């Protein structure tokens, strides 16, 4: 191993506690205290628990993955700016049509449009960097992906505020409709990808992964302009629960990670195919090794599986409270089980039979279809208790 590599390696090792971490912790504690101070009267004991838990998790996460710190700062600054502008303009929803910054930049709709544009350009830039063999284009692509993630998160944060502006009765965290969770999906997938991009020190897979993000952006745009799905709707009584705040995001770590695994699987299959004809092809040289892509598939599926397990268990607990039974064989529930069984089988085959390579890559790609059906198809074709995001 070369020394240059070794020094890079050390970067991912745990750094000693520094000023940066102190500021990070202090700001999160301050922000959480502020949230509690302002909104505490509206929260029930579980929501306060979630706030505390989230603050602790985010402090840890900021240390575990330092890049999340600037991302969080940017999101917080822009979101607060948007809210401040709303307040300056009489705190009415209609201000998003008149106030310049809201109209063009950081009202939730504008921010989401920015996110959409940034993600699509990032996809193109990643591919551009890959084919032009340009590290600077690649870096730019990463920057765009980060910026898109920030704008998407800002969009959701501001949407949360806007839902209360439209009507205090409507107010809710924006993870309740298909439109809202698609934003969550795009942001989450990008962030998980960016994490592995840093960890594996290669940007070559960016284009492939961002393809699925771009696809979800395309759906989002169609859903907005054709169906007007972006309009903020009130919650049905069954969704009015603190469980939504944890069940839905946990699910989307799973969906995001599974999607990445599938896209890496596609990259794997392409590289494997090209390698058969010419192992010295420059494309093959530029892509990560088959082994490391195989490993990344395993890691993302393991991550997704773990979170998907949590999400499904949380969902069962919520179902027990809202519908009176932890398991009702509702189509969404059942499809969550199917997804879970599929990846359980994948992991079993890999861990104990030691399968690697092409069949597993194909399986990961098929897994995406199953996941997509669970996520989208169930809403489109099957009706049941989960009919919140009908197409």
């Amino acid at each position, binding site marked *: *191993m070369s020394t240059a590599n*070794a020094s890079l*390696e050390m970067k991912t090792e745990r750094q000693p506690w520094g000023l940066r971490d102190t500021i990070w912790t202090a700001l999160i504690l301050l922000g959480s205290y502020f949230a509690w101070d302002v909104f505490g009267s509206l929260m029930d004991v579980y929501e306060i628990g979630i706030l505390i838990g989230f603050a602790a998790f985010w402090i840890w996460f900021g240390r575990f993955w330092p890049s999340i710190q600037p991302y969080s700062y940017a999101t917080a600054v822009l979101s607060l700016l948007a809210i401040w502008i709303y307040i300056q303009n009489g705190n009415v929803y209609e201000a998003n049509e008149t106030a310049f910054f809201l109209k063009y930049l950081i009202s939730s709709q504008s921010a989401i449009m920015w996110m959409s544009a940034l993600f699509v350009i990032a996809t193109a830039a990643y591919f551009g960097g890959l084919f032009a063999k340009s590290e600077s284009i690649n870096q730019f692509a990463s920057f765009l992906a980060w910026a898109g993630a920030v704008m998407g998160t800002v969009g959701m944060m501001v949407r949360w505020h806007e839902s209360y502006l439209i*009507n205090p*009765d*409507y107010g809710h965290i924006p993870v309740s409709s298909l439109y809202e969770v698609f934003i969550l999906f795009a942001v989450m997938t990008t962030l998980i990808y960016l994490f592995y991009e840093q960890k594996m020190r290669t940007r070559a897979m960016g284009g492939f992964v961002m393809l699925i993000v771009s696809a979800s952006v395309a759906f989002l745009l169609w859903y907005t302009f054709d169906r007007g799905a972006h309009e903020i*709707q*009130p919650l*049905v*009584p*069954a969704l*009015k*629960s603190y*469980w939504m705040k944890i069940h839905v995001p946990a699910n989307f770590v799973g969906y995001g990670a599974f999607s990445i695994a599938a896209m890496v699987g596609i990259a794997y299959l392409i590289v494997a195919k090209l390698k058969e004809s010419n192992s010295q092809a420059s494309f093959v040289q530029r892509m990560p090794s088959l*082994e*490391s892509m195989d*490993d990344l598939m395993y890691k993302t599926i*393991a*991550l997704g*599986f*773990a979170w998907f*397990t*949590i999400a499904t*268990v949380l969902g*069962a*607990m919520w179902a*027990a*409270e*809202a*519908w*009176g*039974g*932890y*398991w009702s*064989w509702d*189509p969404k529930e*059942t*499809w969550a*089980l*199917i997804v879970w*069984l*599929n990846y*359980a*089988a994948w992991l*079993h*085959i890999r*861990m*104990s*039979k030691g399968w690697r390579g092409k069949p597993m890559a194909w399986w990961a790609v098929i897994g995406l279809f199953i996941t997509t059906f669970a996520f989208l198809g*169930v809403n489109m074709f*099957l009706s049941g208790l989960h009919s919140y995001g009908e197409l």
Partner: protein
Amino acid sequence: MSQPDNQNAKPDTAPKKQHRIQWGAFLGSMNLAVTLLMMLAIASVIGTVLQQNQPFQDYIIKFGPFWTQVFNSLGLFHVYGAAWFILVLLFLLISTGVCLTRNTPGFLKDMKQFSEGLSLNAYKHQPQSITYTPDHFDADQATQLLEQQGYKVKQHERDDGRTIAGMKGRWNRWGYILTHVSIIVICVGGLMDSNLLLKARELSGNLAPETRSVPLSQIPQKSWVGDENFSFRGTVNVAEGQKTDVLFLPYDRGFLVQKLPFTIDVEDFRIQYYDTGMPKNYASDLVLTSPELDEPIRKTIEVNKPLYYKNYAIYQSSFGDGGSKLDLQVHPLLAREFKPLELNTSVDQIETINTPVGKFRIEFNDFKLHNIVPNSEEEQAKTGKKMHNNGPSIIFKVRNEEGKAWEYENFMVPSQQEGRWFYMTGMRTATAEPFRYLFLPADENRKLDRFFEFLTLINDPDRTQATLKDALPAEGVDERTHEMQLKLMNQLLMLFRRQGFTGITRFVEENVPAEDQKRVRDYYINQTSLALQTLYLSVLEKEETQDLETISDFNKQWFEDAMVVLNSLSNYGPPLFFELKDFTHIQSTGLQITKSPGKDVVYFGSTLLIIGVFFLFYMRQKRVWLAFDNHHQTLTVAGKDTKPLPETEKEFNRLVDALQAQTGIKQ
């Protein structure tokens, strides 16, 4: 369920029990496990694609009798309760169990095993191994280094030197055990909550579900279950002010009645709406009384906020009408005088009405207090509101003696359309269709009086004849022609009342030579209109407030609107109109009550599962050995990961680097 890498496991030492071992090998094999997982997945897919537990009739309509029979015998309409599905689950349990019993002892041993007693040569053949000559090697310092890196350390004195064995991440093995135990625990919990016991009782013949919809008192004892029922989940609707001590459990194609060991009084039910008319929240004030309780429990339950009592949970699951009292006026549409019948009834009641065209059964199905609908864009601009409320409505079916039903939705108060007020009444003959609405124009008092005055006048040939004769004197024609014209008008009116203008057109088409049709039709329609106008004027005349010299725009418009209604009244079904005059709103709350002893078991299993999954994926079991060779003064560093990953090598190298920095390397 998994075949672990068994480098550490001893070879099989029981060849004599070969037969049994092969069975075990089959049941515990990975292939079987993955096959079962996939079968479960496919069965689940079928269960979602094919709608479950629907009425049998629906399946026959969808698939035809043959396939319905085939699907039914395969249990596809109740996949999750089908015997083969349970069998797959059972096999999965056995497979998991076999795998677990086979691997756990080895794993538990492996977790304690540092393999510190191997020979120097064995270490040199580990997956990672490097041998070098250290400048100075200190066993305690090296131990410290390993401990800093999170290893547990054991030292061993060999004949030819010393071994320091380190291990970390032993929790990984616990991950395997926990995940697999958890699957068994979850399945056992699920089984506790299944209706297997009821199935057994049904098979033994002392339980039969009720399939009719009959009053509670008529349900035979065979359809009742009592306290002995271990686990259930059912629903019951209770009107405000009423109470219940039973629950209805859906079972097969019918239901069972569950006797509860307590009584629930519903003191009040409340519902709040968003401005869109969507329910925002609903809540019931309950009082739970039980002989075991000194004080009854009072609690308000809401969606997502159930009441827990012992091992029962009571949920707010739905709401509906609890028998609202309705005061109605029935207008027979063929009556010759305006004298509506009074009818006092309530939702869920059935009334019978005799009419000249037969006997009708009226089933009052529902009452809605609010009907909130979106405003059109014009209305939005005018009122600034997105929604408006059309007020209370009743939904009911009118069934004739042959059983054919018409369903109606009638509104109590008029609503505004383009500046005019109308009483809306919707009709449909199939529940799948949307309602088609008639808009009965309200008079100046916003009532229906004028409409029924007008209608009953048209219905009455004697009064019509007299009125027309009065109003249309014979001018320029002889008496006989005039008589004929009046008679024609009367007949045309009857035809119009029965079939509308299309009836007149059809009459002309069937009875008049083609070349004369247009002329005759125009004449007939002209005459009909003239007759209707004349009758309308006489109705206006009777309303003393009307000034007949100049007919107001309102009255002109009213006539047009009434004509639209009269023209299509023939398609309205049975000749009865129900006007809601007054009501007393009584709501009912839909409660879901469960007893679920398996719930905590499932939750416990789920917790094990989550912990296990994290151990399995994020704890890596690693071993390192530092074996010092006294003869050659060399140090062999060896490492082995239970599940090698690409970073294994790098991590090992990093450890070696750290070690070499400590010990130095003899040049």
